[in-house]
């Protein structure tokens, strides 16, 4: 799981690696789940 600057960066990274775009979430949501 990686951190990207924005959704645009996620799209570009996924295309460059030939991977389908996966799920993404905000840092705040990820932090909340880290406590779960």
């Amino acid at each position, binding site marked *: 799981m990686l*951190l990207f*600057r924005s959704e645009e960066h996620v799209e570009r990274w996924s295309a460059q690696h030939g991977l389908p775009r*996966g*799920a993404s979430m905000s840092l705040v949501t*990820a932090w909340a789940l*880290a406590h779960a």
Partner: protein
Amino acid sequence: VNANAMSIDDFDFLVRREVYDVTIRTGRVPAAPEVASALTEDVDDVRASFARLAAARVLVLDDDRNIVMAAPFSGVPTLFTVLANGISYFANCIWDALGVAAMLQADARIETTCDDCGTASSLRVENGAVVGDGIVHFAVPARRWWDDILFT
């Protein structure tokens, strides 16, 4: 403690606890000889325990049976550094970096980079809240994480 006189689960629990105690205290994931010395156990018994813990997906080992991952900590340097309590830790990914801060229940600073453009990113965890910008991306769906956990 006699490893042979204990149930596998009890011994493995002791090994796991020692691995995590050392990691949290030092920021460095210990090798089998260090764990064996601390527990006054045979190193081969500890290595066997490492293998059982890896089979249970508690640890991830490399080809030399050293710990690569003791989630959320990494046994090798990564692009995810967590600074907390004056100690520097390596995490396996951004998810685990947040997990380190949550596990330690401490204020923390997370240093990483955007994997697309390489721009450095510094996040903070302060008073139980995360401060910073960015999008967490899961390239691999959860049901396939263990197909190749190092890539995940």
